[in-house]
């Protein structure tokens, strides 16, 4: 049973790493802790749900449009964020407002009903030794892993990726090299939104959707980024897997209601442990 929990946690952790990746990109280059990230994930999930189950689209085509929708959502943030005098605090409040708006719009459009993918071939399980996992879960984990490798390659091989990394370290120095911080920031929001929506599609494959779950997904993203420490795919995967395994084990050993306690506990511990101060933050 424990082995099964660890295996489920591993698979779930890859999806968590995907959720954390978009969040991390916006945080590092866009200098914004996006509290609407969980709602971005949900919007992606709902778009995929409607396209596949409401309109009968194929999964790949639906996923492509979902990612595009997420990118548009992300691109809407920079014009708002740039107007804020104190981005660090006001940015948090603004994205909380955006989260509340999206949550209510999802409630209006989709109601509070839980949405899951219908059963069938993809929900059948595959036995891997003592562990059984559904086909769809394995597909989600594989897709998340592929997306993370692709993101890491893009960030470390392409010119745009170098620009994003440069701006995340020093905006004046990057500007001095002819890299536009404003443009890179816009790219980060665009890519971050696209990744979040794509991850929302994977959430739909592995769990369920309901409009009130946004804050829980934002918390997962925060926990992954805080635990990972560095915006590198390897660190995010390690953090995501650690969180996923911890949640699975807590669910098996203590009960299903402990999932959110694990993620929120990680964030709290990271923030409240000695050593972090208002001066270190400043």
């Amino acid at each position, binding site marked *: 049973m424990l082995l099964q929990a660890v295996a489920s946690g591993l698979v779930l952790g890859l999806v968590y790493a995907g959720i954390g990746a978009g969040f991390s990109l916006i945080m590092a280059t866009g200098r914004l*802790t996006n*509290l609407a990230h969980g709602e971005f994930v949900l919007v992606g999930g709902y778009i995929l749900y409607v396209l596949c189950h409401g309109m009968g689209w194929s999964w790949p085509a639906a996923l492509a449009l979902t990612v595009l929708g997420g990118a548009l959502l992300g691109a809407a943030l920079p014009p*708002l964020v740039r*107007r*804020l*005098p104190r981005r*660090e*605090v*006001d940015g*948090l*409040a*603004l994205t*909380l*407002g*955006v*989260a*509340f*708006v999206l*949550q*209510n*719009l999802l*409630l*209006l459009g989709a*109601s*509070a009903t839980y949405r899951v993918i219908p059963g069938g071939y993809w929900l059948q399980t595959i036995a891997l030794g003592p562990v059984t996992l559904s086909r769809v879960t394995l597909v989600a984990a594989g897709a998340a892993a592929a997306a993370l490798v692709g993101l890491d390659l893009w960030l470390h091989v392409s010119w745009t990726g170098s620009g994003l990394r440069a701006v995340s370290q020093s905006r004046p120095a990057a500007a001095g090299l002819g890299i536009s911080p404003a443009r890179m920031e816009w790219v980060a929001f665009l890519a971050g939104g696209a990744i979040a929506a794509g991850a929302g599609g994977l959430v739909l494959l592995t769990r369920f959707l309901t409009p*009130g779950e946004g*804050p*829980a997904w934002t*918390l997962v993203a*925060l926990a992954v980024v805080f635990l990972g420490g560095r915006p590198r795919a390897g660190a995010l995967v390690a953090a995501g897997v650690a969180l996923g395994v911890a949640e699975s084990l807590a669910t098996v050993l*203590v*009960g299903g*209601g*402990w*999932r*959110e*306690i694990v*993620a*929120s*506990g990680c*964030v*709290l511990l990271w*923030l*409240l*442990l*000695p050593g*972090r*101060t*208002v*001066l270190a*933050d*400043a």
Partner: protein
Amino acid sequence: MRERRRFFLLWAVVLGAGGIAVATLGRYGVHVVAFGLLYAALATSWSCMRAAGLFSFGQAAFFGAGALTQAWLVTTWRVSPWLALCASAAAGALAALPLIPGLRLSPSSFGLATLAYAIFLKGLAGNAPAFGMEGFLLPKTPGFDGPAAPVVVMLAVLVLAISLGYETFLGRPSGRAAAALRQSPETTLSLGIDLVAARWRPLTLSAATTAMAGALYAHLVGSVETTVVFSSTFSVVPLVLGMLGGALNPLGGLVGTLALYPLDELFFRSALPQAHTLAYGLALCGLLLFRPEGLLGARTPRIPASAVLRRIPHGPCALAVRGLTVRRNGTTVLRDVSFAIEPGQILRVLGPNGAGKTSLLLAIAGRLPAARGAVLLGGTASPRGTAARARRGLGRTFQAPRPFPEWTVRENVALAAERGGAPGEVDKLLQELDLSALSDRSAGQLSVGEGKRLELARVLALEPALLLLDEPLAGLSPAAAERVSNVIERKRREGAAVVWVEHGPAAGDLASQLLVLEGGQIRFLGSPSDWEATREAPS
């Protein structure tokens, strides 16, 4: 006087609007008034925390703690609602305790901690056998049965008490310390004001009153569900209403509620029954983009000229640094540095960029921890932390001026004088540093040179025994530099020990010792004349 008139006028409007609502809408009117007052209480409680530079995204933690405690005590233990109300307030204050270590954090990090904390408590409460996810159905109790007159009156008294508490807090030294912290944390610490000491009161007050509002909510609705009372609505709505009215104003919560809640109740709830809180999300976004200070704007506490907060006499104090090694981000920036200066001496610190001069000042001030070695003040080990060392008599200026921008030049110096117990010195210092003409100007509008002089005036108002000066003459005109040098020399003659980082020649004329740093290590320590002789000697 103007504030008091505004206070009474606003309460007259509240009572008038409440009366009209009850007269025209009957029982539904009482419901509207009751929930309006509940939201006003939550918004004002949220604003109390904002006054200390804290930002809460998780007031639902305290609201849920209060509502659950009240329902549990009244339903399971048949405790009197009055007694349960007191217990709920205590439960709210207790729920704030785990966040005390977070008082050291920046507003945004503290905000994230509160967000996680609300979800954490919701999970814990949901899994607690005593509470569970099923919730409680409260028994009918006279006076506490739904939106009846007694509950409405209690809510009105709660709102009034929170706004008066907030008002009183702003007028007290602790309120001024909290306001200083909100404006410039590092400067505040350098005045000996402790982060946790200045912030725990608003946190506890906010948590306890939010929990009381949660307890009254339990009676208003007649039932309590864990998922509802810990929901993000009770974190976001107080934040939006508080910010809408003006988070840095004791009346902001009430004004924000008057402006938005009637619209929500009378229009959005009927138009969008499932998603009426959309209005709050839209209001928050619009507010941040177009009027971030809120409808009433900020009310920063003034610093009285004559108040004395605490007298801390600082006798002459020697400084000894022994084998000090400091690491920053994994790099050793100071290695095995030792020196000592006596009261009435000036030690000038020289060195190229990156030599470790500022790191040395930061380590002596307690801002950077020592990896090895010790800093001794008056022959004894110095306490940990910037604020604690400032209280031992250590005053420090910053390389780039860091004033409290919302206060005038005079108030900046008066706050330090209040801490140092020298309020009578303010005018003398302003005159000595040629700041008298600028005394009523906002410190945020000063030039760099004026800011540098204000830095020195503020530090001297603390009556320090040991002065740490980081390039106080850089960027000053020759006349201003001479004036500043004279003030430092006067302070030395009075017995202060001075560690002075400066490139220009003026500091060299006054210094009795010279410390030359290179690559974090001591290259020379001795008299300035010996250093000159060393440099002139053929190699």
